[in-house]
């Protein structure tokens, strides 16, 4: 483990960020992305893989990351966008937005998954190098940190949506396809934050 950021720095990059997203699988809600620049010597053993952490441990890790990070940013792509451009593109778009919010501007990104973020025509993208990392969220500390920020933020958003659209159980399943979610969907029909292009949301 470790070493990814150190190696990038050894190649001369100064601001190395990890980028990840949360919420591609759910039937409802946004896809949330985060970008994090960690300081050297960050106690990464304490955050580990966000999927392996309990919600409570994730909240703790969230505090640790946001208080220690040199920079972090969170952004999202809406359910409407997901329906318009498909979930894979929407998650890359959310990651792009998170990176564009980072200050200082990074010059190197480790991006979780198979694909680099499609650069925007304008802005800092000309000077940013990227490396996609499959299962980066369990191998690379800053990607792991980004994964936790994205997941915790998304969970919080879904808690808010529970109040706006009660009855679906967003606070418990966070939009993921569980039995209770299906039943609610059948009874109430899709809410405005449901992804209409995911079969399982709209009957048929």
């Amino acid at each position, binding site marked *: 483990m470790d070493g990814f950021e150190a190696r990038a720095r050894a190649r001369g990059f100064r601001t190395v960020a990890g980028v990840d997203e949360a919420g*591609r*699988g759910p*039937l409802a809600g946004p896809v949330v992305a985060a970008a994090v620049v960690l300081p050297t010597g960050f106690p990464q053993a304490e955050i580990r893989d966000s999927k392996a952490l309990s919600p409570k441990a994730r909240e703790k890790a969230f505090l640790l990351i946001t208080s220690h990070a040199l920079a972090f940013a969170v952004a999202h792509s809406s359910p409407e966008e997901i329906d318009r451009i*498909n*979930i*894979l593109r929407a998650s890359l778009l959310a990651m792009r937005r998170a990176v564009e919010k980072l200050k200082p501007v990074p010059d190197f990104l480790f991006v979780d*998954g*198979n*694909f680099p973020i499609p650069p925007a025509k304008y802005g800092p993208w000309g000077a940013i190098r990227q490396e996609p990392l*499959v*299962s980066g969220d369990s191998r690379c500390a800053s990607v792991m940190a980004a994964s936790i920020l994205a997941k915790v933020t998304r969970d919080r958003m879904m808690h808010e949506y529970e109040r706006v659209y009660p009855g679906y159980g967003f606070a418990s399943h966070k939009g*993921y*396809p*569980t*039995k209770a979610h*299906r039943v609610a969907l059948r009874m109430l029909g899709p809410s405005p934050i449901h992804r209409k*292009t*995911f*079969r*399982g949301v709209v009957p*048929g």
Partner: protein
Amino acid sequence: MGRDAEEAVCAYLGKRGIRIVERNFRSRGGEIDIIAREGEVLAFVEVRFREEDGHGLPEESVGAVKRRRIATAARAYLATVPPDSWREARFDVAAVDGGDCGPVIRYYPGAFDAKGKIL
């Protein structure tokens, strides 16, 4: 499991009025899970389903080699049908994600082109 996933996608297409013309088409170069037709448009559909311990989403696992093999098989298929029977062809990816209750289908029409390039 793979079979169930393909069934689910066929049902999905059927409900949308898209006709299934071939299943598991094989040629020397590769295999196509589903060939469907909507009027003069042919769709070559690759079905992906959630594997245990998979990284990322199932639809991301259609790699460059696989995409080219599908395109090769598609050319072989097109050679077997009358050239004026279709006007357009495209490559779709259907992801079947098994939640703990029934499948979720995410359908990507025109996911990649005949050179295997992701669109």
